[in-house]
Each structure stands twice: as C-alpha cells, then as structure tokens.
C-alpha cells in the first residue's frame, strides 16, 4: 500500500486529480456523474440521504452532500467537472467554487481574472501578427 509521490505534489494550492484522489472520492464522483440524467437528479432531490446510501457514500461523504458543502466536497478529492453537475444547478458556479478556496466572492474572483488581461491589446500589438479587434 504505497501511494506514489509526484512532481506536481509540490505545486502550492493545486490538487491534481490522480489515482490517489480519484480512489478516495470514487463514490462521490459516481453519484455526481449520475446527475447527467434528469431522473437521477429528481430521485436525489426527493431524498438526498437515501440517494447517498444507494451510491455507498460513507457517513462523512454523505454529510457533505446532504449539506451541500461544495468546498469541502472538492477538498474530499472529487473532480471539479463532476462537482459542477451538483453545484451549478444550485446556483453555485465553478467560479464561485474556485473563489471559495481563497475565501473571496465569485465577483471578486471574476475581477481578479479581468485584471490579468489589462493591456492585452497593446501586448498583442507588440507581439505582432495577432488579430486584434
């Protein structure tokens, strides 16, 4: 029983969805994957706890899902693409989820993204060859 270390383990604030994480969160991801189907979403909404049991979630995982603790669900190792099938229909965007890791709002998160494009047109002008509006 040896989970291998990886180069990417040392990148701060970054969780790579590898075998170790996928292994621990398999039941959670499987539950979220089922939400591709409307009938599964309805079945979950009718009785979230029972639906968690059906997918074999442990007590801790079940609590996170029933209480919709989106950030902690991500911390439990789930994949963001699978989580999105749970949080987006509940009004929590992927950007909101990303923002939560930094303790800021979704709007602040979006502003930070916009800041990264400041001076983009001038920059591309200097680079040359770019279509530039």
């Amino acid at each position, binding site marked *: 029983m040896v989970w291998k270390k*990886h*180069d*990417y383990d040392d*990148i*701060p*604030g*970054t*969780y*790579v*969805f*590898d*075998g170790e994480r*996928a292994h621990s969160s*398999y039941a959670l*991801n*499987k539950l*979220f*994957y089922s*939400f*591709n*189907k*409307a009938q599964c*979403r309805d079945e979950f909404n009718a009785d979230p706890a029972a639906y968690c049991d059906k997918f074999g979630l442990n007590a801790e995982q079940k609590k996170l899902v029933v209480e919709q603790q989106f950030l902690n669900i*991500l911390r439990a190792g789930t*994949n*963001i*693409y*699978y989580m*999105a*099938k*749970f949080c*987006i*229909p509940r009004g929590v965007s*992927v*950007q909101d*989820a*990303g*923002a939560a*890791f*930094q303790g800021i709002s979704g709007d602040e*998160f979006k502003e*930070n*993204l*916009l800041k*990264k*494009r400041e001076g*983009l047109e001038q*920059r*591309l002008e200097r*680079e040359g*060859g*770019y*279509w530039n*509006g």
Partner: protein
Amino acid sequence: MAKIIGGVTTSHIPAVGNAISEGLTQEHYWKRFFDGYQPVKDWLADKKPDVIIVVYNDHGLNFFLDKVPTFAIGCADEYQNADEGWGLKPTSPFAGDAEFSWHLAESLINQEFDMCTCQEMLVDHGFVNPMRVLFGDHEVWPVKTVPLVVNTVQHPLPSAERCYKLGQALKKAIESYPEDLNVVVAGTGGMSHQLQGERAGIIDVDYDLATMESIINDPSWFYKQSNAEIIEKAGTEGIETIMWLVMRGALVDKVNCLHKHYHAPISNTGAGVLLLTDGTD
C-alpha cells in the same frame, strides 16, 4: 486520397456555448472573443471540408471514471450530444463517417497507439462548442465529424510529446485513406486555467502566447515540457492545451499561420485561436 487541408485550435469551455445560445456574442464581454473567429469561419465556409476531426477531452458525459481511455476515437455514423447535468437542450446530432473512423483506428493501432474504439459516443461541450463556434448552429451540420478523445482529466495523462506523436501517426492514417476527403483537424481546450484549489483563477498570458508561438513554429518547446511543468504554468485544467499538439503533429513541419487570435479571460480561461495550413495556399 484523403488530405489534411488545415488545422485549427479553439477553446471549448461551456460558457462559449451558453453565450451562443443566449445571443450574447456581440455583448461587450464576448464580442472580441467571437469576432476573432470570423476569419476561421470564413475559411471553413470557403473550403467546405468533408470531415473535421475534433480532438477534445470528455468532462464526464460519455466516460465515467470506471473506464478512462487515454485515447479514444468515435467509429459511428452519428454522435449525439446530451444533457451534462445542467438541463441544457442538446444540439442536433453530428454525422460521423464510420468507414473513415475505422480506417483511422486501424492505422493508429498498427502504429502502436492503443486506441479505444467507440461505436456509440455521446459528445459533450468539449466537442460541441468548437463545432458551434467554428460552423455556427445547424439542424444538419455542414461537415462530417470524427471525435478523438484525449484523457486530460484522470491522471496519469498522456505526455505532451505522446500527444504530438499521436498527431504524427494521425497524419499518416489520414493520408493513407483511399477516398478523396478534405480533412480539418481541430485541437481544442485550454488555454491557461485552474478551476480548483487556492491557486484557482490562473491566467498566464505570457505562457499562453509562448504556447501559441510554439504551436506554430516550434512545437518541441511545448511538448518537451512534462505535464507537471505545464500544470505549474497553465494550471490543472490548462493541461488540456496538450491536445493542440495532436492537431499540430498532423500538420507539416513548417506551417503557414493564416490567423492568430488570443483573448482573455473567457470565463476562467485564456482562449487561443489558430488557423494553420501547409503553406502551399
């Protein structure tokens, strides 16, 4: 014989599809991003390719974690889009070319690429949004398609260099098909972005522009990087950009860049558009 008439790159993020569906493409936030596609749309409308091979990753629609192939290829007559869990209305289905797909699969497997063949395949936003942004919406799409799926979700992923080599093998596969088909290869996804962790919100314009220049003129700069190095720069989801190398490997060494467009941010990402040909046009 089939031949590759060009390669394109494009983002495939969900927000692009939403913006099209909601008629927002000329709104301030979106206008520059979408306007930058017009020369590629015009070129495609002019060239009328017979087939487009769309290189993308599935985000949990057709593939779940019980079976994650490194490389998969659609081998069907038709591909359906479907609800990814957000209740969006699926697009009309996409025509495939099963004979061509099977030829590609066989050639790739003979060249020691261990493909997963898919005779039935749901295509998600990673495939659909490139089609919508490159061709506009259609009841009957004006081109046949081959979905080529690269695992960029469940690590370990193929290396950037393996993706480039897949492209080189794909070129041989395409060019050995006896029918006269004009083929475009689209590399989708990226560019820099990270959706989770305290480092969420990465957009690295420098790295993105360097990647675009590399894709055009010197793909080895990009493909010599390890996945950990790319993730460190481009983010955990920015690693998707390795799929551009499949397109690039399928082109000639010295390409002609007909169009180059970069915009950021689109949703969480840097977005790059390239139109590359073999330089004879």
